[in-house]
């Protein structure tokens, strides 16, 4: 998200709303156009009147409060008409190469009603209630890269503004947030007439756009080892660069302390009902106190102060605290860190060509390197293979089944790389070290996907999850969070062990107020003076 806003502000992108054709019932369409140095992109938004009983965040839903497509350029009336026939149907419709993404959103019913009523009566909504929910609408899917007929990423990835991964989706979400603000304002004016007031700019800015994410995102992490490697690698390199700084300047320290204080406020507004996350937020709150205490006591006067802080953190803070600290130490050093965003795209496909000349010995070594930890697990034990990933016939939804309770094993997806690597390693035992892997694959085509992944690990050392993805205690929400965190999502709120809600762009300036001055630090809420 910050990569996107940094570019939009830095390049002076302009924003307009050429269409806003929404009727008194809140039904119609609107177009939001973003224009950069070379190209324009337009969000085409459709607002619907959705009965409560049809509102579902699940992939199996068939109707939504609002539906969207990101159009490549500025749509003509004919384009809008074509999209009107298809976008509201989502998966059941078709979009074209002119569209870059397809998405939909549902209202947070309680916050939506509250904000409309308050504004209609002429006063501002209750900010405590706003902070409890965080958004007026949440997207329930944002599809890009060739899905349902959209343009493939390969056709647009050479454009500088779309080269970093998921910039299409982030732009779509950013413009959607502006549409949602305008729509709630429109509905308040319809309801309140001349008594209605305008949503205060600073209150609107606190609102993000929500998102519900389910299991579908978990396979993505496993199926894109090269892309995910590049993300982790960029992160590790950023942290390494900062830990190598010998002296922190007063300005660096000042900025770090500011972000730390504002993070405390952000964490205090983080609401979750999930027992696991409630505990994590509590320990994170304690961790933040400890960090402040440590800084008050030791300051930053030692050599390599950031490294010293991180070393201290490994023994003193929970994982949540360590992760937050690792991201906060990057804040004072945009010149060192921000260019790494350009290394996060995957130029290479995840389905690479196999090097058949590789020796059996080398293949064993690669498998051991990524999955040695898994070789001694008993893969027959129900505990270690209790789950099976499959795709349901119904709306093609990815699901996680109980291998020993449901008839899903015949449909299992290849999403257990550790188990498969163990099996390949076992079969390789009978082969001489100097034979090549091409010969092995002629006899064992069932290990082809595993051999491919293992070879990919040479270029993608962070491409594999070092854990069992089918064990009885696997938590898919952890995989979802890993991906969502790279988007810059906040207020991670698991709703079960396999789906989550998050918030995006909370605190961000809207397109009409975006500037170089406010494009960076919005993710940290302002502390009242």
């Amino acid at each position, binding site marked *: 998200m910050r990569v996107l806003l940094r570019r939009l502000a830095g390049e002076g992108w302009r924003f307009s709303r050429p269409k806003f054709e929404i009727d008194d019932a809140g039904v119609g369409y609107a177009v939001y156009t973003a224009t950069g140095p070379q190209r324009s992109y337009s969000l085409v938004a459709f607002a619907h009147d959705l009965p409560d009983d049809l*509102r579902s965040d699940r992939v199996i839903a068939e109707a939504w409060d609002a539906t969207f497509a990101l159009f490549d350029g500025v749509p003509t009336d004919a384009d809008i008409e074509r999209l009107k026939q298809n976008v509201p149907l989502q998966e059941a419709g078709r979009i074209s*190469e002119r569209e870059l993404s397809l998405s939909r959103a549902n209202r947070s019913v*309680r916050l939506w009603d509250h904000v409309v009523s308050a504004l209609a009566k002429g006063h501002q909504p209750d900010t405590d209630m706003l902070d409890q929910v965080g958004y007026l609408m949440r997207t329930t899917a944002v599809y890009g890269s060739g899905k349902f007929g959209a343009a493939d990423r*390969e056709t647009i990835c050479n454009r500088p503004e779309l080269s970093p991964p998921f910039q299409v989706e982030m732009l779509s979400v950013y413009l959607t947030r502006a549409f949602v603000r305008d729509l709630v304002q429109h509905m308040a004016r319809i309801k309140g007439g001349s008594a209605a007031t305008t949503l205060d700019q600073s209150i609107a800015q606190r609102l993000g756009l929500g998102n519900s994410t389910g299991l579908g995102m978990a396979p993505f992490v496993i199926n894109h080892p090269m892309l995910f490697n590049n993300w982790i690698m960029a992160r590790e390199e950023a942290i390494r660069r900062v830990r190598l700084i010998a002296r922190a300047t007063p300005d660096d320290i000042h900025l770090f302390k500011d972000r730390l204080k504002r993070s405390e406020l952000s964490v205090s507004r983080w609401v979750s009902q999930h027992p696991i996350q409630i505990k994590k937020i509590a320990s994170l709150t304690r961790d933040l106190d400890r960090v402040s205490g440590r800084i008050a006591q030791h300051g930053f006067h030692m050599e390599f102060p950031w490294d010293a802080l991180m070393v201290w953190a490994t023994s003193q803070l929970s994982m949540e605290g360590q992760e937050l600290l690792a991201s906060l130490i990057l804040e004072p050093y945009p010149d060192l860190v921000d260019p790494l965003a350009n290394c996060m795209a995957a130029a290479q496909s995840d*389905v690479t060509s196999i090097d058949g000349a590789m020796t059996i010995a080398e293949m064993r070594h690669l498998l051991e390197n990524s999955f040695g930890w898994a070789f001694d697990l008993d893969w027959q034990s129900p505990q270690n293979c209790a789950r099976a990933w499959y795709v*349901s*016939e119904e709306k093609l939804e990815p699901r996680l089944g109980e291998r020993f309770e*449901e008839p899903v094993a015949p449909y299992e997806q290849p999403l257990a790389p550790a188990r498969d690597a163990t099996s390949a390693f076992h079969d390789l035992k009978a082969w001489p070290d100097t034979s090549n892997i091409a010969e092995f694959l002629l006899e064992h085509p069932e290990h082809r996907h595993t051999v491919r992944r293992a070879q990919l690990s040479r270029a993608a050392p962070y491409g594999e999850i070092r854990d069992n993805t089918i064990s009885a205690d696997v938590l898919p929400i952890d995989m979802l969070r890993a991906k969502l965190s790279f988007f810059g999502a906040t207020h991670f709120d698991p709703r079960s062990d396999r789906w989550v809600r998050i918030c995006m762009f909370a605190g961000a300036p809207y397109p009409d107020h975006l500037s170089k001055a406010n494009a960076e630090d919005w993710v940290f809420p302002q502390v009242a003076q």
Partner: protein
Amino acid sequence: MTVSLNEVEATAKKAARGAGHTWGMAEEAAKATRWLCRHGVDGCAALARLLTTETGDIEQDALKRARVWRPVSAPLCPLNVGASMADLAHELIDEPRQVGHVTCPSLLIPFAADIASKTGKTVALSGAGFTALTDGETLNLVGQMPYQADQLVFHTTASPLRPNGVFSRSDPAKPDWAMLQELAHRTYAPATEASRLKGAGAGMTDND
């Protein structure tokens, strides 16, 4: 209706898996079908035909690096042959290989391209009234692709390439696309009420 190449790849992978290929070979099928479509050859038609044709195994001689790869019984599968040839690309640089009776031979072309990429040479696949030249990135196809071929040769060449165009979309014939989707469907588990609720972890209201 045109489809995106990502749709081609995703559908081809599931269809090949649905037809009984291993996951690794399904990945090869997907990559090959996409490559053909990108280069203006109807990969969906070839894959749909292949996946509904009975094919045989490669004679064990292939394991001993025979110069001619022959089927044991029915025609050879171009995915198995192509993938194995590409795996052995390092051995094919100076020594042409012949492939006996093979079905849907256009699906061998992407593997010829892979061999070209790996060896840095232009690779020709010829016989049965066509010649496909590729340097890995581009394709120069001359002649009509047959449904089956009795004798094909993979060899490196110094012939100049006059590349055909590349495409960002594909326009498969309806019956072919429907066939691939039907095969893909076999990879989906029938839904039950329990899995509907449990499998994706829902059950809470979204009207909040």
